[in-house]
């Protein structure tokens, strides 16, 4: 008897908000400064201080909630999450446990359970013992990060594979980036993702015992970590064992999973309402502004592009980065009658590849503007030059910034439009290559490739492939 198991994955995503100051005090946010230069009695938890929430952080949080399609709470409150650790000088973190600011949302195929506001912990560096947490004898604490505003987004367990988590995570990141409320940079820690993972028999509604995979700094690693953990859990169950609840760390360099905390102490946070803070009650205007200020978000933009004929993959690529979307729309605007599907393929395909190939140049530094690319695309569409020539023109445009017309003229790439001339070349090619010609005549149509190649060589790629094919078939009696 063999049971098929499926993975069930939910995510907890922490987003650092890009306000100027911390969540509960006026210390400036920074990244990469000397340790402990942005602290004050509040974020160091000196006795007798009181936190005051940052209004901007509340606004940003509401915008995130609105972008995730959540219901924005008319009243939200703060709670204390108690834990003893040097990254947390109060011995509790201020968070929202009971009444978060946003609930019941959805992004793409994943439901959002809720999103809440909280404060980030300080950075601890474990010294001695090689820097790894276990085996070190002292820690150094830098409170610059302590108190940074965070929005934690908690999904329902709607994800089923590491690859799906990566793709959805990228959509979430693009969505929040577009709001302009966070840098969402995983390497710098302004976007962090934990995954709760369990497995269950396919078709079952119950949830198995979950493990938590902590804090990975890229979606690729998260994908690999999840795949490794799902495989491990399936093996444990296949061997008749039981999955134990624990927190895991994935080491991308070895592909191994390590257990982090002992389970007996986990999740005993003794939450209680934060008596130092009064409820946040957003005014109807504030709530309305959070919703109406939303820019067009990636999921909606991708839908709009698909509706005008852009392929699904290209639509996603264009939607994730505003600058690519704007570039694409610039091409459509400049090129009258341009086919959006063709334009999207040039932008996400040929142009993106050429920029990557030439010094991995970002789009913002591209010497090829949308109008020049539109001209090139139209030259190909109108068969003034072949598609192959179009690519080499683009190569020159990317490297020198030249206009497509002048590159075409200079390199003599103008397509042979005189069909009499092309016909003579076709007849010559058939005479020069009697063997493939005979093969085609006797039914082996694939052999026509050799003849097309001969014509292209003779014309230096300046012939339209479709026309060459048509003339060859005509002269071979097909």
């Amino acid at each position: 008897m063999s049971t098929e198991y499926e993975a069930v994955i939910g995510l907890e995503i922490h987003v650092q908000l890009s306000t100027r100051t911390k969540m509960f005090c006026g210390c400036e946010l920074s990244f990469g400064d000397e340790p402990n230069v942005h602290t004050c009695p509040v974020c160091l938890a000196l006795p007798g201080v009181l936190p005051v929430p940052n209004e901007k952080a509340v606004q940003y949080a509401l915008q995130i909630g609105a972008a995730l399609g959540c219901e924005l709470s008319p009243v939200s409150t703060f709670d204390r999450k108690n834990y003893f650790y040097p990254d947390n000088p109060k011995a509790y973190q201020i968070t929202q446990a009971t009444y978060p600011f946003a609930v019941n949302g959805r992004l793409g195929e994943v439901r959002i359970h809720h999103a809440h506001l909280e404060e980030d912990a300080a950075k601890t560096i474990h010294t001695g013992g090689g820097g790894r947490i276990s085996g070190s004898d002292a820690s150094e604490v830098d409170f610059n990060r302590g108190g940074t505003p965070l929005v934690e987004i908690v999904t329902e367990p709607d994800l089923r594979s590491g690859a799906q988590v990566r793709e959805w995570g990228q959509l979430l990141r693009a969505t929040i980036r577009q709001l302009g409320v966070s840098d969402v940079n995983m390497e710098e820690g302004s976007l962090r993702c934990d995954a709760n993972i369990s497995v269950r028999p396919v078709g079952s509604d119950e949830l198995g015992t979950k493990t938590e995979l902590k804090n990975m700094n890229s979606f690729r690693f998260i994908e690999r970590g999840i795949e490794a953990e799902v495989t491990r859990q399936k093996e444990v169950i296949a061997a008749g064992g039981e999955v134990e609840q624990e927190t895991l760390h994935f080491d991308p360099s070895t592909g191994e999973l390590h257990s982090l905390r002992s389970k007996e102490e986990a999740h005993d946070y003794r939450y209680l309402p934060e008596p130092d803070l009064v409820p946040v009650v957003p005014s109807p205007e504030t709530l309305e502004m959070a919703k109406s200020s939303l820019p067009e978000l990636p999921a909606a933009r991708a839908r709009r592009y698909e509706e005008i004929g852009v392929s699904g993959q290209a639509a996603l690529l264009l939607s994730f980065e505003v600058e690519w979307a704007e570039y694409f729309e610039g091409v459509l605007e400049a090129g009258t009658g341009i086919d959006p599907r063709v334009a999207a393929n040039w932008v996400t395909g040929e142009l993106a590849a050429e920029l990557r190939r030439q010094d991995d140049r970002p789009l913002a530094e591209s010497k090829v503007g949308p109008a020049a690319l539109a001209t090139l695309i139209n030259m190909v569409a109108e068969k003034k030059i072949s598609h192959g020539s179009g690519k080499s023109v683009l190569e020159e445009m990317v490297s020198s910034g030249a206009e497509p017309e002048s590159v075409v003229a200079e390199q003599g790439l103008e397509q042979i439009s005189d069909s009499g001339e092309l016909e003579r070349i076709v007849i010559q090619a058939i005479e020069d290559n009697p063997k493939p010609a005979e093969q085609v005549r006797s039914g082996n149509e694939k052999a026509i490739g050799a003849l097309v190649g001969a014509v292209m060589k003779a014309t230096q790629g300046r012939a339209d492939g479709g026309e060459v094919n048509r003339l060859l078939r005509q002269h071979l009696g097909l």
Partner: protein
Amino acid sequence: MIEREQVLHVARLSRLRLSDEEVDTLTGELSSVLDHVDKLAEVDIEGVEPTSHVLPLENVLRTDEPRPSLEREVALSQAPDPHDGAFRVPSPQAEA
């Protein structure tokens, strides 16, 4: 009624080292605190909104304007073992 085990558990979470006598005293004291709080359960709260705060206040917020932080020397002046501009503490793992 609170058990001795629970007192030890909470003490451990709070990193408090308690003597046997202290555990006995606290077990009794915490029990009576809880009993006292339990009295609240006798009140009929049917239809009453949960109270999140006793003050009639809401939306006490500040604008996102930076204020001066402490000089680092001042921030570290009360630290028992500052090192390289950081607060140095015993490893949280070592004592666990």
